């Protein structure tokens, strides 16, 4: 806003401009008495003008500082906001380290790997871990689990919830008061009840559910993570027109990106691997093609290294390339058992 648009009398505006007060900042340091002298007006009038100016300045800074657009933020505000954010722990310390503390809210993270490497296990683990109460250092949120493959097993989710509760209580064993406060929450059944489960049998249903989430999340503000296991399955059939597939997928990823920002939640997409025919040989690569690889903020690849499971940050704007071992135990995702060669930075 400029002086010329200031909601004060036109004569005062003219006097301000002719006295050399052309910007808001020139008015910020001036005292009412000095302004009254400069403009040759009454003291009361001068302090009224300054009050109007300071009101406007304050309300503008509330809506994003010097923003020229409503809804925009300065990088400084974003940084402090991000530092306040909690991460969703994966259950494995090394994996959390290379992820910068865990899975970030407001970001779309893609996780890929061969069958049996532990993608679904990680998905179930995150759906459980997001529910660790705030008193125990968690987010105390709920989870949306979109199952396209039928791999979500209730008995496994129950085991993982049990394991998570046991380990969380162990860690906070000395705070008896906290334990009593959260006794009801810290039951495997209530963990399961806080997972909203959608079973999808076609890609049209998948798109419909993602469209529906907009409405659903407006009612369920507690949801802190959306897991799609896997984003790929229904898009690997029936698509002869690959350009169409790309358009549909891009639309979907834009919607998900928007959801993460609007509702401050994390989106985790599980993806399959496929062999790609390049330069006469077959290479392993994540499915859905090259244009899809731009759709996610972070990309994590799970792979076998000898007999150990490893995770590798393949793409991220803020994390550096690194790999870390993890293991899948009866309790869920945990640290790799061998203590040697921990995190390897590259």
């Amino acid at each position, binding site marked *: 806003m400029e002086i010329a648009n200031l909601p004060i009398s036109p004569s005062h505006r003219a006097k301000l401009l002719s006295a050399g007060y052309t910007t808001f900042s020139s008015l910020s340091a001036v005292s009412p008495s000095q302004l009254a002298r400069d403009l040759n007006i009454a003291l009361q009038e001068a302090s009224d003008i300054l009050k109007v100016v300071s009101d406007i300045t304050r309300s503008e800074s509330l809506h994003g500082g010097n923003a020229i657009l409503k809804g925009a933020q300065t990088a400084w505000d974003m940084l402090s906001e991000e530092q306040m954010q909690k991460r969703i722990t994966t259950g494995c310390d090394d994996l959390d380290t290379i992820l910068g503390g865990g899975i970030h809210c407001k970001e779309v993270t893609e996780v890929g790997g*061969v*069958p*049996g490497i*532990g993608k*679904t*296990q990680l998905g179930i683990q995150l759906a459980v871990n997001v529910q660790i109460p705030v008193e125990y250092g968690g987010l105390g949120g709920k989870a*949306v689990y979109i199952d396209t*493959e*039928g*791999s*979500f*097993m*209730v*008995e*496994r*989710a129950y085991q993982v919830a049990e394991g998570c509760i046991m380990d969380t209580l162990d860690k906070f064993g000395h705070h008896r008061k906290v334990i009593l406060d959260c006794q009801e929450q810290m039951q495997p*059944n209530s963990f*399961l*009840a806080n*997972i*909203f*489960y*959608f*079973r999808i*049998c*076609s890609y*049209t*249903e998948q*798109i*419909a*559910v993602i*469209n*529906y989430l907009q*409405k659903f999340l407006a009612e369920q503000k507690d949801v802190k993570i959306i897991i799609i296991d896997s984003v*790929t*399955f*229904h898009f*690997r*059939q*029936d698509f002869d027109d690959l350009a*169409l597939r790309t*358009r*549909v997928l891009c639309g979907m990823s834009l919607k998900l990106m928007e959801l993460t920002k609007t509702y401050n939640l994390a989106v985790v997409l599980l993806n399959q*691997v*496929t*062999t790609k*025919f390049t330069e006469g*040989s*077959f*290479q*392993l690569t994540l499915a859905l093609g090259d244009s899809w690889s731009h759709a996610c903020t972070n990309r994590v690849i799970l*792979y*076998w*290294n000898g*007999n150990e499971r490893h995770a590798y940050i393949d793409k991220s704007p803020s994390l550096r390339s690194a790999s870390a071992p993890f*293991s*899948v*135990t*009866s309790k869920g995702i945990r640290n790799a*058992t061998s203590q040697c060669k921990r995190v390897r930075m590259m």
Partner: protein
Amino acid sequence: MLDPHPTSFLSQRRLENGKDAMVPIKPESPLNLPTQKLSLGCPVLDRLVRGGLPVGSVTELAGESGTGKSQICLQLLLAALRPPSLGGLSAASLYIHSEFPFPLRRLRRLLTPFAPSSVVPTPLDHIFVRPAHSPDDLLSLLTAVDALLARPPSALPVRLLVVDSIAALFRSEFDNTPADLKRRSSLFFKIAAKLKEQARRFEAVVVVTNQVVDVVGGSESYGSSGNAIRVGNYGSLWSSGRRVCPALGLSWANCINTRIFLSRSDDIVRNERALVDEESDDRVHGTVVRTRRKMEMVFAPHLPEASCEFVIVSEGVFGVEAQSEKSETPSPTSQI
């Protein structure tokens, strides 16, 4: 034609009365999901898979010929007829076969041990058998199966679907060229999506069998060419002294929920043990060839890495308790 932006939040589901209807998509609570399991018909094997094969998901049995895939399938057909108190589903079943004439005599021999008339009056009335000749044939058959599942011709609902074997259908028709492989994997995903939809909609157990291929070029490293990519809990799988891996490649492995590997190895022993496989009871120059059979959990969303030896005798397929002190039940920290 595809509408990339469906305006309504509706999805097509089959209602109880067998009619298709558009119902709103709603989240479910995991606490209300079906968790029933179908027993394999042997307590030892059931312990390996924690009670049986789960409804609503696709389980693959992979193994070379003669490892007992079809035997287990036949046993499942009969086990499904039993009431839930005996590990069954009180359900009829559909057996789609592509390999050989349906082994009716073998099935009849299994009737007495698994579905005695005291438990199930007319078991063979509830087992539907249909051959499939090509992948496209299977796909159109599965579409027609919707009607069978929604309106079962017998008194019992059909809740077990067996495809024996999926690999035989795909063996001949496709070349090893990128275009053919792409067409092939698109068919895999279509068939798998249909099977999974049926498993989910009708709370059915789906079992497919798969063959194995020899592993050529032995490198295990990530991104290596050929078929040596490690899938699941085991760095390598062995059967009859050869290194093998389940057929149909990585795309098909993405299509199934659980993979169980069956293998055999022939040992020549002098003394006959108490439990000897009757099928291969060849006596050559005073020695006995004993076939050791093994069932290994390659991957499963709900099960840890585990394995178990088993035998095939005239009464069926049975697991053998581990003889040594290390038990089959995993310790709390064991790897999955």
